[in-house]
């Protein structure tokens, strides 16, 4: 293990992404799932930063700024949906929300 390289950042990013994905797939609480989605977004941001750092380019950071802005908007919409849903069905358990099936 020598110099800090882009591989380390990407490994972190991959680890975060997989943790997030596993959270989305396994957890049943819709809020946790939502947070895991945010985690996956963050993993992507780290990759962008890492590549930008390696290439000596600002493009990666600009991308990340955009992503964060959009993630904020997405969080607002997502939370609003979750709020509306929990009010309607009185639960945050996704296994119990299957009205579309029937």
């Amino acid at each position, binding site marked *: 293990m020598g110099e800090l390289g882009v591989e380390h950042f990407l*490994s972190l990013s991959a680890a975060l992404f997989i943790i997030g994905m596993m959270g989305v797939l396994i957890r049943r609480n819709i809020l946790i799932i939502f947070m895991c989605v945010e985690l996956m977004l963050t993993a992507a941001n780290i990759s962008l930063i890492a590549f930008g750092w390696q290439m000596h380019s600002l493009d990666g950071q600009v991308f990340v700024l955009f992503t964060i802005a959009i993630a904020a908007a997405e969080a607002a919409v997502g939370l609003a949906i979750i709020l509306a849903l929990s009010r309607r069905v009185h639960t945050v358990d996704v296994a119990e*929300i299957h009205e579309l099936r029937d």
Partner: protein
Amino acid sequence: MADYLILIPLLPLVAAIINLLLGRTVTRGKAHLVSVPAVAGSWFVSLLVLRDIWNTEHAIEQKLFTWIPSGSFNVPVNLYADQLTAVMLMVVTSVGLLVHIYSIGYMHGDGAYYRFFAYLPLFVFSMLMLVLADNYMIVFFFWEAVGLCSFLLIGYYYKRRSAGNAAKKAFIVNRVGDLGFGLGVIMIFWTFGTVNFWGPEGVFARVGDFGQTTITVIALLLFTGAIGKSAQFPLHVWLPDAMEGPTPVSALIHAATMVTAGIYLVARSNALFQASTTAMLVVTCIGLFTAVMGASIAITQNDIKRIVAYSTVSQLGFMAFALGTGAWMAAIFHLMTHAFFKGLLFLGCGSVIHGMHEEQDIQKMGNLRKYMPVTFLTFLIGSLANAGIFPLAGFWSKDEIIVGAWISTVFPNFGKVVTVLAFAAAFMTAFYMFRLVFKVFFGKENFDTEHVHPHESPKTMTGPLVILAVATILIGFVGFPPEDGKFHHFIGTVFESHAGEATHAMASVAVHNDGGALAVMAEEGEHGGHHVSLAMTITFGVISSVVAIGGIFLAYLYYIRRSLSAEATAARFNGLYNFLYNRWGFDTLYQERIVAPLMRLAYFLWQVIDVKVIDGTVNGIAKGTLSASQTLRKVQTGVVSNYALAIALGMVVIIGIYLVGFSSLDVPFLR
């Protein structure tokens, strides 16, 4: 000058449309006030047409419009009235008018009065267009139209099952003949390149340009149509059943006019038939067989209308073999006289049935002359005319047919056989007619006099009977003296003009036409040289009178003096009696050999082909789709995690393919 020709068919058409559209709401029980004047108007215009043609001796034409302009296939709708048409117009409108008037009384109080008075003028319209048409396509069109009207009117009492069946039978049996006629029209267009009758490019002018075989085929196909419509063997079975319709309909359509359409068609196409001896032979044989068969069946029947119906079949047979032996004028003459006396007989039957409260079995009648004197007298006149007693209408025309067969130049030897058999048929005709008369109007009452009170019919019914009876007495004289009467001079030109044009004109049409026609024929060098002498006319007149009186006398012995017992004779010739009573077994034969197998085939097609194969396939596809989707819909759990898993797995697979397939790419951390 000829612009009024259109009025003849137009008036009944307008009446029919008015009654069809407004019958239910406006005209209702007064529907006859629309129809009767319309038909009367068309009768009057027909009279004018007759006068004009009589005076000018020229055909009248009126061009209307072109129905089908399609390349070389051109079907104009033109009205054309020559001498033959004029005779047909008079027959159709006269009998039509009288039947309309008669129906006012007969159909009184019927629930669908307006419907009757809509169909009846519709029929008159179709029939008039049929005889006015100047090409085969229009003839065919209205040929079908009269068939339709016949169907509607036979099935007029559609709530009665037997009426519905009879209507279907008439329609389907006629289809067989119409198929032949349709093929004939196609064949005519194929051969001649036109369907028009007249003009230098018309069919009749160019018969000689084509081979004998072609012309024979065309003539036979046309005659197939005539067999169906004119109830000739083997398609005669529909006509007696057609008596399920109201009696005025039987009189107008199934005795006087529509059934003569076949005779008219053959007479109109005489140029084609004259060019083919084979076709003429077929026409003769079928006509003769029908004449004998119809008369023999009529002897044993008990239903009053059925007897007269078989009589019609027999008389149509007479007309057909007259055409076949080349006695064209005699055939048309008989067509005309028959229309009047058979119309009279049918209306008389209607009056009897009406007076007897819907009883049709002659075994349950008797001595009706006491109750219905007018009906009796007129019916007697009709019967005498049908039997061929001097000097009534039937005598002149039937005699001429028989003489025509005897001197036929088409079949010099066969004609003699025809004559003998025709006498046999004439004998049977006289017998069955007077069996009917004696059973119905003489003897003792064979009905319950306590409960049944026969009564004379109203004036609207007896009026037409009297008019028709007078016509029956007088109409024969237009053909007097025999072979040389006004009628013959008038209509003769129709059959002469084409004789010279047919290359195979083996016989002059005007075989027994002397006077003016002779000169024409001599010029053409086609004259067969036959000439009816006065002696021959008188001889045949005497023979046929003796035959007719003999038939009547035999009926007298059986049913009035009872010196011969009908029951004993029937028992003695049991086999023959049953054979005749069962109408030569034709109905049974057709039922067993044609209808039943077709029903079985239809049942098979329905139960196996349609239900199992076609429906099975369609329903099978639907069922397969349904069960497949029932299985597949389980994939859609509705649980978000499952979808997310599917997305993730899909992504893994895609990336996996990407990495394996594009491994040459420089991916740093996989190095």
